Structure formats: C-alpha cells, structure tokens
C-alpha cells in the first residue's frame, strides 16, 4: 500500500509542486493521475520511489517511510518499484538486453556488473520480460535502432525485470503516436490485470485516462482536486481539474484498435 500523509514538495527556488497531499493507493490498483503540465504529476509519482524527496509530511510504501529511508533502504525499496519514463531513458549505445538487465542491478554483485557478466537466471528473467512485451526478437539490437514505441516497451521490460510489486509510469505515451500509445497503455493494463501489480500512470489525455484509469486522481497546482472512478470523471470534472474548458489538444482522439478484429477476419 502507498500512503501520502500531508505530503508536500517545495523545490529549491520556492516552487511548490505538491501541497498537503493525502492519498491511499491499495495493492493491485490501476491509478491514472491527470493534470496539466506543471500540476505536480511527475513530482507525485517520483515521491513514491524517492527520486524526489518530500519536504513536508510523509510518503509510506508498505508501511516504510520513503523520505526517512537510508541510502541502502531506499535502494532496496526502489528495487521493488519499477518505473518507466516519458523519454524512455534507455542507454542507446548498448543492446536491448543490456538495457533490460539494468532492472537487475540491485540484485547483481558489483563485480558481475563491472564485467558485464550477468547470472544466467537474470538473463532468463530479462528474456521473459522481453517476451511479455513481445519484443524479444530485438534482444541483441542496439537500443538506438528501435522506434519510440519499441523503446518504451523495452523500458517496460526493464522495469518488469525488477520483479516489482509497484509499477510507475511518468507520461509513458507523451512521445508516442496514437496507435502506439494504445499498445503501451494495454501493456500497462495487462501488467496490472495479469501480474497484479499496482500501476500508477501519469497522463494528460483525458480519453486515455478515462479508458484505462480504474481510479482517477486529478491534480491542480499540486493539490488533489479529484479522486474517483474513471466513469465518474465527465467533462465537467476534467474542466475543474484543468481549470479551463477542454480543447482538442486534451484528447488523443484515436479510439483503441479492436484487438479481436484481426482474428475474426477469415
């Protein structure tokens, strides 16, 4: 369980990114966080694994306080939390497999990492993670040779290789085209449904948010202004989250492709 208790983040320079956030996210939930850019979505998600430290209040993951964890405790905590990013954050000059193996860094002995000799079990784990996102045939290709959508799926595999219980996704589809966005969102949905991981996704497209978010949290100026199910969130709710009327830019605008269509055709 993830708990935010009166959590605030003030960046050096005085920008208040989170203000007194109180939240409880149960194990196995699929949560989408929406809000304009600058509303504090990235800060909120990074507070969970301590990439951003809360400056007030507390964030607890499975009862353990993130801001008060020692370096070693924080690393142990992070190893159980997978994360993907808007810019994929792959090492482009190395192979897909090496990138996925980065998910094993916490468990791997330092000398093995230095020599690049990972245990066979870890390689197997990485390969299975690549199979899950259906990109295993690219295992020995340089990451720079992949398309954006493929890179994001490699990033998902890297996070899966950690065998985490929580999966964070910070604007995972913001640099992708609409069809690829749906592919990645479906992957996240499957991770939640099939593997039972808690998934927290930042999005700014309201149609994607409504489609995939079983629970929807609206942020505005660092404050939680909505917390409810995806069905409850109608246009007026989004207008209150965004603080303005909606425009065409707020929707991805492409319906999810029907997965069964290809199989139905003779």
């Amino acid at each position, binding site marked *: 369980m993830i708990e935010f208790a009166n959590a605030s983040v003030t960046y050096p320079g005085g920008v208040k990114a989170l203000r007194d956030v109180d939240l409880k996210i149960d194990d196995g939930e699929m949560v989408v966080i929406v809000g304009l850019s600058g509303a504090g979505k990235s800060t909120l998600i990074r507070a969970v694994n301590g990439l951003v430290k809360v400056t007030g209040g507390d964030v607890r993951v499975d009862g353990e306080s993130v801001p008060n964890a020692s370096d070693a405790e924080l690393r142990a905590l992070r190893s159980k939390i997978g*994360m993907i990013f808007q810019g994929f*954050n792959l090492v482009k000059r190395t192979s897909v497999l090496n990138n996925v193996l980065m998910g094993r860094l*916490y468990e791997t002995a*330092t000398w093995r990492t230095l020599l690049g000799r990972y245990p066979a079990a870890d390689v197997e784990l990485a390969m299975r993670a690549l199979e899950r996102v259906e990109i295993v045939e690219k295992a020995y290709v340089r990451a720079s040779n992949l398309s954006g959508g493929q890179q994001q799926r490699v990033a998902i595999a890297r*996070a899966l290789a950690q065998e985490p219980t929580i999966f964070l996704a910070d604007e995972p589809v913001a640099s992708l085209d609409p069809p690829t966005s749906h592919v990645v969102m479906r992957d996240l949905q499957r991770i939640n449904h099939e593997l039972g991981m808690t998934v927290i996704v930042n999005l700014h497209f309201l149609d994607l948010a409504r489609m995939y978010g079983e629970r929807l949290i609206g942020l505005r100026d660092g404050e939680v202004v909505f917390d409810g199910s995806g069905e409850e969130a109608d246009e007026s709710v989004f207008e209150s989250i965004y603080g303005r009327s909606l425009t065409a830019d707020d929707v991805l605008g492409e319906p999810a492709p029907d997965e069964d269509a290809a199989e139905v055709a003779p």
Partner: protein
Amino acid sequence: MSATDAGTVAPQRPTKPRPSPMRYVAVGVVALLTWLAASDLTGIGLVSRLQRTFADGIPDRTAEIFDQILSPDWSILGATVDPFLETLAMAVLGTLLGCSLALLVAFGASAITAGGRKRLAGTRSIMSVIRSVPDVMWALVFVSAVGTGTISGLLALVLFNIGVVAKLLSETIDAVDTGPLEAADAAGAGIIARARTAVFPQVLPNYLAFSLYAFEINVRASAVLGLVGAGGIGQLLLFFRNRFDYDRVSLVVVEIFVFVFLTELLSITLRRRLTE
C-alpha cells in the same frame, strides 16, 4: 502596389552602431606590449640583436650548424632503432596505464558519478595538482626519485595522461544523457553499477578517442622526456647535441617527425571512425 508603398508604416531602420573606440585602445595596448617585450628592457633584447645581425651578417658558426642540420647523418640509422623502440614502448605502456587510471579518476571527477561533494572536490583538486605540473617536471621529479631511464619517463607519462584524459572524460560525463541514470536510480542501482551501465556505454567512444589522442601526445612527449634523462630516443638526442653532432641530431629529429606524423595519421583516422 509594391511592398514599400505608404499606408503601412514600416518601423524605421536602425542606423549601424558606431564601433567602440575601445578597439583602437586595444590595438594600441597590444602594440605597446609587443614593443616593450622586444626592446632592451627585457632579456630578449630582440631589437638590438637584430640590429647587430644586420650590421655584422650571420655568424659563421650559425651557418655551419644549419649546414649540418640540413645534411642528416644517415649512417647511424641502425643505432637509433633500440632507443626508438624504447620510446615507443614507453608511449604504449604510458597510454595503457595512464588511460586506465584516468577512467577511474574521471568518474570521481564528474558531479554526475562522483557520489558526494567531498569525493568530487577531492578528486578534482588532486587532478588540478597533477595537471598543473608539466610532463617534463614530472619526469625530472621521477628521475631524481627512481633514477634515469625509461621507468621515470613511463611514470611521468602515466601522471600526465591521468591529468589530460581524466579532465576531458569527466567533462564528457558531465554532458551525458541523464535519463538512463534516473532509470538506474529508480531500479535501486548502486553508484558503481549505475556508472558502469548507464554512463560508461555513453562515453566509451569518446574515451577511446581521448586515449588515442593521449597516445599521440605520448609519442611526442616521450621523445622530449628523454632530454631530462628519462630514457629513449630523447636521451640519444641529448647525447648527440652535447657532442655538437648536429648532423646526427638532425637525423633523430627527422625520425621523430616521421614517427609522430604516422601516429597522428593513424590516430586521426581511428578517431574519426569512433566518433561517427
């Protein structure tokens, strides 16, 4: 209706600003400094020296030395092979050792990978000290400490390479894409693991290019280091010079030139491939 027609009031074109009078002052200052440096106020005394040369003509001894330099003594070519190999070995080993150590130092000298301000400040100050001492000075220090010979030259090259390569590489690390670092942190990686997996692959081509560049410098430097007793071809050069065998000095210089030229050619070709 043309574009210049009235009706739309175009904003007035600005007049070209006057050049600052400071430029004349700057030229004047540079000219004055040059004149002062060449005058008899300094030890060079270039002006009076030139005046004397014009009055008396070029001294015989100078002409004789130039004659000798222009006709290298090819008969001793065979005798220069061993010292030359010594110099080459010094350059190769110096590059390998120096660049390996520089790799470690560089990670400690970048804010991204150092892991703590104290370590960063410590590494950087050690690097400054190493770099502020010229390679020839290092050679002199080691010649006094461990005696004349190639080991002193080697040690000098190692320190010199750490200074140069660690500096260049740490600046490359500073400019690396930090996305993968964030990913490594999020996965709970330790400081060594994240440096190895998220940073090293990104800077590897640069590192190899810097190492080749270091080798290039080493070939040249190892010739000079011999002059202070650090072995190799430079020591032979010093020996001939002390005996005023300028035709032999000239041969060694020609050899060094050819050798340095070839290494540079090789290094440039390889480096171009690396950074492509």
